[in-house]
């Protein structure tokens, strides 16, 4: 999907540089803790479970939809042209839960369905993660 100048793009921090660098070439990463072996997605450097330092690690981005909403009204010019669009909360295989826009027909999403993270290229700006159908 082409970049839309009106839609906001993510803003990187020093702690999320690894995530956004990988996102630029379409790779999805989660934080992994070498101390307790848990995955997390806080964007802050330390593991929320044991407070050891985390590393960014590749993930296949596959997740199961827990719930979704179909947005039918927006006051935001950048999103008006996408209406109706679905937003889904899904649980990644590694554990963390994430809410993203579903890039596909809103009517095609269902609870329990598997989706996968993909990235929308925003040129010089940070790429936006979205769910796509598997």
């Amino acid at each position, binding site marked *: 999907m082409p970049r839309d100048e009106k839609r906001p793009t993510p803003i990187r921090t020093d702690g999320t540089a690894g995530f956004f660098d990988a996102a630029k070439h379409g790779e999805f990463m989660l934080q992994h803790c070498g101390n307790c072996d848990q995955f997390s997605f806080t964007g802050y450097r330390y593991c929320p479970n044991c407070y050891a330092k985390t590393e960014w690690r590749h993930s296949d981005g596959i997740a199961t939809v827990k*719930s979704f909403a179909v947005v039918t009204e927006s006051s935001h010019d950048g999103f008006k042209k996408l209406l109706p669009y679905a937003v889904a909360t899904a649980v990644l295989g590694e554990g963390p839960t994430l809410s993203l826009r579903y890039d596909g027909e809103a009517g095609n999403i269902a609870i329990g369905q598997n989706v996968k993270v993909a990235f929308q290229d925003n040129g010089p700006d940070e790429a936006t993660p979205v769910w796509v159908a598997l």
Partner: protein
Amino acid sequence: MTDMGRVYGQSAMDFAVQAVALALDDSGLDKNDIDGLLISGGLCSYLNMSDAVSMHLQKALGMQDLKLVNEMNAYGATAASMLQYAALTCASGQTDAVVCVFADAPLQENPTAGYGTAINVGTGIESLNGPSGILNAATQFAMAARQHMEEYGTTSEHLAEIAVATRAWATMNPFAQKRDPITVTDHQESRMIADPLHLLDCCVVSNGGIAVIVTSLERARDLKQPPVRILGWGQGHPGDRDDRMIHTGARMSGLQALQMAGAELDDIDIRQIYDCFTYTTLVTLEDYGYCAKGEGGEAFSNGRLGPGGDLPTNTGGGQLSGYYMWGMTPISEAIIQTRGQAGERQVPKHDLTLVSGNGGALQYHASLVLGADI
């Protein structure tokens, strides 16, 4: 409290000053009697709009050498938390009289460029919501409502019952923004905002300000208004717990508040629930224990929450039909009812009220039990 709703020509800070002036006049206290100030802002503060409520309020109020000042934030749970903190400082002797203020002015008469596109951007992982099109709470609460529907069979008509009962109360509240009665059909035919939530599942947006003065019971008994006692409080903050929007912090905070007040649910006469959406009323009452988990859809239908029902709830029209002053909406109506000053919507028995405040996307929750001085 100030006038509510589409009131233009002043900022959130102006509403805050006006609310304090009204509260002082209402209580009979003098500005110099106030020695504590707790401050909370709404959308204007969240979106960094001009003249949002801030620590500058002390200067705006011309208050010097206070014994307590703080700007507090647990989103919709802030107001109840402010009253708890104020009560503790009064009880410990640190303060004599603390004014707790909330004010907001997000509605513009002539919207400026960018109005409606203002979002709280955030950084890092927190900055993914805006680009994902998750621009308002409706999207998040729609996901919660859908999950509740999936797990428990709750329907949109169940949510409509809550909207209708709440509006029935609002028809009798001169401060309410929406005062025309509605039906389940009106709800079902109102436009979809974020499926499954219709327009009539969503709260209003308001300009205005509310100030509450907390002092000792002895002092309050000498003032102009009947005292409203803070009998119990509790907090319960699920944070990012995955199932927090179905199993909310209301359970934890409600149990604590009732226990401190030495009360059972059956003793509660009136409920004032933070109702940013119809779903929030349903899930909060469920988690307070008014029905078995998941059965709220049926349990709160057939006018039970409305005028004449056996569970009078959100008797001023709540945030759905009344006014959206975040956690101050339920507190203000609880005070009006407890004093017996609610006019034609007055609930006959108004000795004990359970008040809820929900924050964020249900990450935060604070409860109060307020009571008459009997």
